[in-house]
Structures are given as structure tokens and as C-alpha cells.
């Protein structure tokens, strides 16, 4: 939302947009209506287009899809966001999933790479990174390229340091990156076992034998009907006994979660496939 406090396009404009982008962004229908309405208002502000007709015209530009999607998606907010979750992953979940053969971790909707690098750092500290395949779904090639650069603005270092410190994992996080003038750059070898998949929707990804799914704060933006579908799709791709981590405030209204998974860590919202 940036500096925009809260604006929305109308339901009629939302419908007009969805009609026009049926082929451009077929996945757009999976989002909750209210999210689409406020997010398009945000994108218009970011593109400095205040007029709806001009925005609709801009959709004909060849560069529109890439520019639009880069602004539309909500980037993961922080490295090690919700430090208590990462603490449980480090001490409990990751050691358990290493028992799976093969050991596959799936991040179906990666927007900034911050959760990916948080995970890879934990695996590296544990000395097991090379034993784990990480499958990462991204909405577009530019997002994948950005993540592969492993570079983040310098101001993110403070949050990285403080969130990691809160996990109480005894390690110097500074060992995993170097600083440039305006950025921090993670060691690129961390990405060695990562496979990136360009994919507009989780439903078009079918990684086999997944043992752990990191899917945090994504269901917040999806319609309730699709929340059900996505959870069922995750279930289908998981090994028996595999784990699923959701955001701390989502998924409660998704009936499938209660029937397909048991809630093993209620405070951290980490589920296990029944």
C-alpha cells in the first residue's frame, strides 16, 4: 500500500480488468476480489496513472504484464519473519524432514526470496543443505532473476540481524553475506540445490514427494474457494507425514486443513499431513 492508505477500484472496474486480462493473467481469478480491488489501485498509484481509462489503455503495452505483476504481487516482508517459527523449523521440523528420502522442500509462491534465503541459511548452519532439494515457484522470470542475484537493499540487514537474533540460533548470520555500498549480497552457493520454476499458479506445479511446504502469508490474498483448492493440491503433492507451514494468521477458515492435516504446532501454524 506504500503511502496510499487504502483505496480500491470499484467492483465494476475489477470485473472490467478481469475480463480484459483473462488471457494475460489467467491466474488473476484466484485472488480475493477485495485484494484485486485494492491492489490494482495500488499499482495505478505506483505507475502514476490516476485515470481508469488510461490504465486500461496501458494494458495494451507490451511491457505491461511484467511491470504490472512486479508491483501487484506482495513481496515477502522480512527475512526470518516470525522468528519463533524459524526456531521451531531449526530445532524440530527440519531435523524431522531430513528423515525423508528424498528430502524435498517446496516454496510454491516465492516473491522476494527472503523466506528462501532464511531457509537456506538454516539448512547451511545445520550442515545439510546439499541433502535437500528445494523447489521454488515464482510468478515470472524477472522475479527468478532478482532472487538469483541474491542482493537486497542495505536497510534490510537490520531486520535480518534482529529477526535472526530473536531465533536464538547460535550462529553469526553475517557469515552468509557481504556488504556493498547499498546492498547485502548472500553467498550464491546457497542456491546450488534450488530449482526455480516459472509458474503463474501453484496448481501448475506438481513437485513429487514433497516433505515440507513453506507457504506463508499467501492464502491471505486468495479467494476462499481457491484456498480450499490450493490446500488440497499441496496435500496431493506431499509425502505422508510431511509438514506444511502457513502464515500465523491464515488458514483457519479452510476446512480442508482440518480434515487433511493435523495441527502439530498451533502457535507456529505448522501442520502435518495425516
Amino acid at each position, binding site marked *: *500500500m*506504500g*503511502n*496510499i*492508505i*487504502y*483505496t*480500491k477500484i470499484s467492483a465494476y472496474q475489477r470485473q472490467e480488468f478481469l475480463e480484459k486480462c483473462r488471457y494475460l493473467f489467467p491466474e488473476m481469478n484466484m485472488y*480475493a476480489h*477485495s*485484494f484485486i480491488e*485494492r*491492489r490494482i489501485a*495500488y499499482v495505478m498509484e505506483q505507475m502514476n496513472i490516476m485515470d481508469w481509462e488510461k490504465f486500461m489503455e496501458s494494458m495494451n503495452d507490451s511491457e505491461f504484464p511484467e511491470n504490472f505483476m512486479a508491483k501487484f504481487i*506482495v513481496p*515477502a*516482508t522480512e527475512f526470518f*519473519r*516470525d*522468528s*519463533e517459527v524459524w526456531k521451531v523449523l531449526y530445532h524440530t521440523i527440519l531435523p524431522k524432514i531430513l528423515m525423508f528420502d528424498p528430502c524435498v522442500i517446496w516454496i510454491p509462491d516465492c516473491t522476494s526470496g527472503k523466506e528462501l534465503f532464511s531457509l537456506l541459511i538454516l539448512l547451511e548452519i545445520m550442515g545439510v543443505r546439499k541433502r535437500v532439494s528445494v523447489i521454488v515457484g515464482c510468478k515470472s522470470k524477472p522475479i527468478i532473476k532478482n532472487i538469483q542475484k541474491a542482493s537486497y537493499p542495505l536497510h534490510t540487514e537490520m531486520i535480518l540481524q*534482529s*529477526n535472526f537474533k*530473536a531465533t536464538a540460533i547460535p550462529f553469526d548470520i553475517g557469515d552468509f553475506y557481504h556488504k556493498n555500498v547499498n546492498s547485502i549480497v548472500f553467498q550464491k552457493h546457497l542456491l546450488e540445490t534450488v530449482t526455480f520454476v516459472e509458474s503463474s499458479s501453484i496448481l501448475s506445479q506438481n513437485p513429487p514427494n514433497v516433505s515440507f511446504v513453506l507457504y506463508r*502469508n499467501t*492464502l*491471505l*490474498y486468495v479467494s*476462499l474457494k481457491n484456498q480450499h483448492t490450493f490446500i488440497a493440491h499441496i496435500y496431493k503433492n506431499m509425502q505422508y507425514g510431511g509438514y506444511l507451514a502457513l*502464515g*500465523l*494468521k*491464515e*488458514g*483457519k*477458515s479452510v476446512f480442508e486443513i482440518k480434515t487433511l492435516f493435523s495441527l502439530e504446532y498451533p502457535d507456529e501454524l505448522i501442520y502435518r499431513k495425516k
Partner: protein
Amino acid sequence: MDIKKSQYKLIVIGGSAGSFSVVTALLKQIPKKFEIPIIICMHRLKHVRSGFEETLSLISKNMVTEPFHNDVLEKGKIYIAPANYHLIVEPEMTISLSTEELVNYTRPSIDVLFSSAAHSLKSSVIGIILSGANKDGARGLAQIHEMGGCTIVQDPTEAQVSTMPLTAIEQCKPTFVFKQNQIIDFIIDVSKTRR
């Protein structure tokens, strides 16, 4: 302004530095089975999640909860905006949570809560700004005012930190500027009209 107290379906309260004592006084005095849902958005440290909800639960006669995404707003409940999520009120009286960009350098943002409530429930909203050290909430309160809702600002002479009330008064021209006790009396009175 003509106040029809029975028109209100939701009370939204925003505060920052110096507002906690007002919120606790309010929650202590609000009677059980309060007729209107209340959402409180207070600036807080994002990585400190535990304790806040529990502390307020101990002093309130009504259920205090940090909502989940898609929760339905119910009377008799006090909702606390969770740390590090924006809280958005939807037209069908449900709550959406969001990790979208910071607003006024903060998440949750009072402006986001107030503006979404104004857009969704129009004149059925009471917005209240308490003590605070920044400007968050002023624009959202103005939107509640524009939509015909009732807007209340804590008297800056009484507020521990007056920046937030003063900015709200400047940007909104609120319906009332009340001292803490007047705010509490007004809220209790509004609830009585709905019985």
C-alpha cells in the same frame, strides 16, 4: 452533527504512545456482551507477539482476540490488530489481514483500518483516535468523517502524547473532542441504544 446512536455497527480505535492506559480503562468499563464489535489498532513492536492479547483479556469483561484472516466481526468481541499485519474491514463485516507494504512506516496501520472501515461500512462506523506520537490515523479518521461516520479524538490537552490527536483534529475536524471518561461514556451509551 446529528448523531443517531443506533446507526453504528462498528467502533474502531487507534492509538500509539500513551494510549495503552486509555485502552485498558476503556476495556475495564465496557459492560459484558457489548452490542458493537470493537477493533483496536495500536502500534507495537512487531516481533513481540505474546502477552498483549492476554493482558487485555484479563481486564476486559468481553472476549479479546487477535483475529485470523476471514474472521467474522461479532458483537461482544474486542479485536486487536495483530502485530505485523494490516487489518482490513470488508463490507460483509469480515476481517482481512495483509502483509502489504508499511503505511506511515507501520504495520498494522491505523489509517488502513479506519479507511477500510469507512469504505466498507460508510456511516455505520465510529472512529476514535487516542494519544500517539505520529500522524497515523488522521487521514483514515477524515475518511470516516467524509462517509458520515462519527469521529472522536482524545483531547490533546489530556493525551500523554498529543501529536496524533492534534494531527487528527487538523485533518478531520472531528465530531467530538473528548476526554478519556467522555469517550468511555459515549461508547457505553451507543451500545445501550442497540439493545
